[in-house]
């Protein structure tokens, strides 16, 4: 298989399989998780301003008072890499085009130099996060193989995408193919790993918000 | 119907601007000029091989200025060899028969090689002269 065939495979059957497994996984997992149901809370509710599931979904995107100071690396690094990923994935021209091809929606893109810079910053943040995971006793203690693996699976698409556009190490075609492949691996891994938090965190925050809002506590 | 009435107005797309690749060339030229003085060895910079934007080239041309000598060569299209304000530093541009720029150099030499007549060509010329003389 030469590199163009490899690229074509990743853009064709590879993508199909990856998106397929991704959709399969997402639907299966979401149904599996959320149909477990829960009991109705029979206690008389107390209403309070700012306390609801939806409030929590949004509010939990900001660090609670005092936490930023306690864990600056987790928060700042986490912000940078999540926002960076979002910028790259949703505002990079080729990605918008992919999304447009898959779902028909499109919007303006950001300059590619900016995306390139964002990728560097994102990768730096991810490396810092990795170092933090190695250095911080709690994180190291909690980390399993899955944590290292998902880090790599998330890091590789950014790295390969950046290297492809910067023409580093391998010819663009090969790098692009590797980039797409790594993104496909990410898609495949996502529903079956902690990366699924991208989906469930909304449910989790909502549940947390609901449970506490019942008692009148905005969380 | 003619196109004479069509005014051409070229708007470059977001002028790439200066890359900062041009200033170091001046230092390189200085080295080359010194070498020319010391050893007599000519040298050249191939401008098309460098990542220079039109703005860079303009900057460079502007800095080097115009000198006293301009040579035009008609061979497979026009070539121009302009001495810059620094004697010994020549801006050489080759065009093809269609007038498109095919290559661009800065040469550092007392006289660029290209300008000098080659003995072999001179020999051919002498033959021609002989022919003219014999016809007198």
């Amino acid at each position, binding site marked *: 298989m030469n590199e163009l065939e490899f690229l074509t495979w990743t853009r064709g059957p590879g993508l199909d399989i990856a998106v397929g497994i991704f959709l399969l996984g997402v639907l299966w997992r979401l149904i599996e998780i959320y149909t477990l149901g829960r009991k109705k809370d029979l206690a008389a509710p107390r209403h309070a301003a700012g306390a609801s599931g939806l409030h929590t979904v949004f509010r939990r995107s900001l660090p609670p008072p005092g936490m930023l100071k306690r864990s600056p690396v987790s928060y700042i690094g986490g912000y940078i890499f999540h926002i960076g990923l979002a910028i790259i994935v949703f505002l990079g021209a080729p990605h918008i085009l992919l999304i447009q091809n898959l779902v028909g929606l499109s919007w303006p893109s950001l300059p590619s130099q900016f995306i390139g810079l964002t990728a560097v910053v994102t990768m730096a943040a991810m490396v810092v996060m990795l170092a933090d995971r190695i250095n911080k006793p709690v994180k190291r203690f909690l980390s399993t193989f899955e944590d290292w693996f998902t880090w790599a699976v998330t890091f590789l698409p950014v790295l390969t995408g950046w290297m492809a556009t910067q023409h580093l190490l391998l010819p663009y075609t090969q790098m692009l193919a590797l980039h797409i492949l790594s993104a496909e691996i990410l898609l495949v891994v996502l529903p079956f790993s902690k990366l699924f938090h991208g989906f469930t965190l909304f449910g989790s925050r909502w549940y947390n918000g609901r449970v506490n809002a019942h008692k009148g506590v905005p969380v | *119907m003619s*196109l004479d*009435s*069509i*005014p*051409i*107005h*070229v*708007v*470059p*797309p*977001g002028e790439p601007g200066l890359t900062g690749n041009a200033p170091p060339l001046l230092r390189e030229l200085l080295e080359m000029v010194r070498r020319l003085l010391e050893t007599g060895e000519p040298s050249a910079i191939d401008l098309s091989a460098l990542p220079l934007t039109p703005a860079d080239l303009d900057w460079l041309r502007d800095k080097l200025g115009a000198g006293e000598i301009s040579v035009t060569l008609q061979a497979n299209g026009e070539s121009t060899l302009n001495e810059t304000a620094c004697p010994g530093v020549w801006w050489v541009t080759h065009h093809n028969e269609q007038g498109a720029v095919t290559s661009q150099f800065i040469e550092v030499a007392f006289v660029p090689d290209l300008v000098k007549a080659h003995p072999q060509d001179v020999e051919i010329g002498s033959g021609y002269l002989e022919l003219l003389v014999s016809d007198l």
Partner: protein
Amino acid sequence: MTTAQRVVVDPITRIEGHLRIEAETDASGKITHAYSAGTMVRGIEIILRGRDPRDAWAFAQRICGVCTLVHGIASVRSVEDALHRAIPSYSIPHNAELIRNLMIAAQYVHDHVMHFYHLHALDWVDVVSALKADPKATSTLAQSISGYSKSSPGYFADVQKRVKTFVEQGQLGIFANAYWGHPAYKLPPEANLMAVAHYLDALAWQRDVVKLHTIFGGKNPHPNFVVGGVPSAISVQPGAGQGGPHYRGGQDATALNVVGLETIQNVIRQMREFVDQVYVPDTLAIAGFYKDWAGRGEGLGNFLSFGDLPSKGFWDTDSYLIPRGVILNRDLSKIHPIDLDADSEIQEFVSHSWYKYSQGDAQGLHPFKGETELHYTGPKPPYEQLDVDKKYSWLKSPRWQGKSMEVGPLARVLMLYATGNAQAKELVGYTLKTLDVPVDALFSTLGRTAARTLESKILADAMQGWYDQLIANIKAGDIRTFNEQYWEPSTWPKHMQGVGLMEAPRGGLSHWIVIDDGKISNYQAVVPSTWNAGPRDAQGQPGAYEAALQDNHVMQDPKQPIEILRTIHSFDPCIACAVHVTDPDGEELVQVKIK
């Protein structure tokens, strides 16, 4: 003597592709039977299956790199026709049509000139003889036939010197081993020298005039096309009463800007100049020495033209510059209409072709139902001779109402002449008068070559009109070049079929496409050289090459089959040609078969 000879010519050089001619002669050297075999196949029709119809042109275009544009156009037209049949409102912008016309015509003029000077001329022009010419006399000759600027004695002396140096060096390269000195060469040395000079001139000229394709299509060979129009957006915007259009966009935007338009105007001027001052005069001058060739090489006498160069859209055949129709048995008084969709009209046979039809090889198939399944049954290479009673070619045998047809410049000029095109009538009349030959002379090897020259003139002149219209449209504010509606195959009906017709330089070309679910389910290209060079059909009717060679060809020296080359080249084969006596060892030239 009952000795018959079989002359096998393979490869035929100075053509496009791989062609083999096997001819049987009687004892006098006269060709009694000729067999034309295409010996190369790539299976592009097979490769096209299942692909995006919008991509098809690029594949189809690679059928030929000489008439590099025609398959691309035919292919995009086939898809557009399928869309038009399904959605009658579908059409392409007028500018796109004008640009396509300009590209097609430029291809004709370019191709015909190159064919004449670089592929065909050496059959008539003896390069070695040119060395003996007097440059001064050559100059006089040149000035007597044309006002072409390059006609000084010094100019011809220079060319002669250059060729002489070359010959003296002893490395003749592409001019080595030709039939120089063959008695069939009849031009005086001066005419030979003039032709050689123009051979070189034409090489330089053709390099420049292809720029028209480069501007519209990005490159030549193989310029780019697009279903629904042309890819080259016009980077000129009409001025709002400010004195004409303005250039738009950055860094030259697209090639089709004011500078590009000016280049195109120059190309048209150059083309008309060269055709008027060099090509037409040379053809007439050379033909004057070969009038005997007005009496042989006719072949079928049946001519087919699909017509081309529309002014009101591909689907308005009345607006075509070159009309559509069929001429049977030299009868110019009656033009037969062509029914594209009737199963019985256009068919391809494979009785003598290395293909297999699922319902048996005897019947013909309409291209919409056409099949392409490679089925080689010939001898295992290396071979010396093909079994012409069985299958012997990679070309199919297309037929119209069961009849063999000749396509190409002669068919077109006859069609123009028969339908009363004024310019054609005038040019044909002038030619016949100049050469002092009857109208019948058109049906010959010479007529075919002359027809090519004449239609070059007609098209070069027409180009100026299309160009002026394009400029007028731009000035009037119409700069549309592409119809983006129905661009996405997802918007297409589930099943469609269409035919892209055009007149290629070498004749009527048709691409037949069947589209299911936005993908190609069948693709059949019936190309000019299939009509002309195709083998015998089930009824044993020969193709145009075969018929033409069987018409009054006596070979002076079977080892030097220049007669075969002249007639075959007069068709301008598009199969890469080299007539060549089969000779695996390089010694035995002729195979003699005892009948």
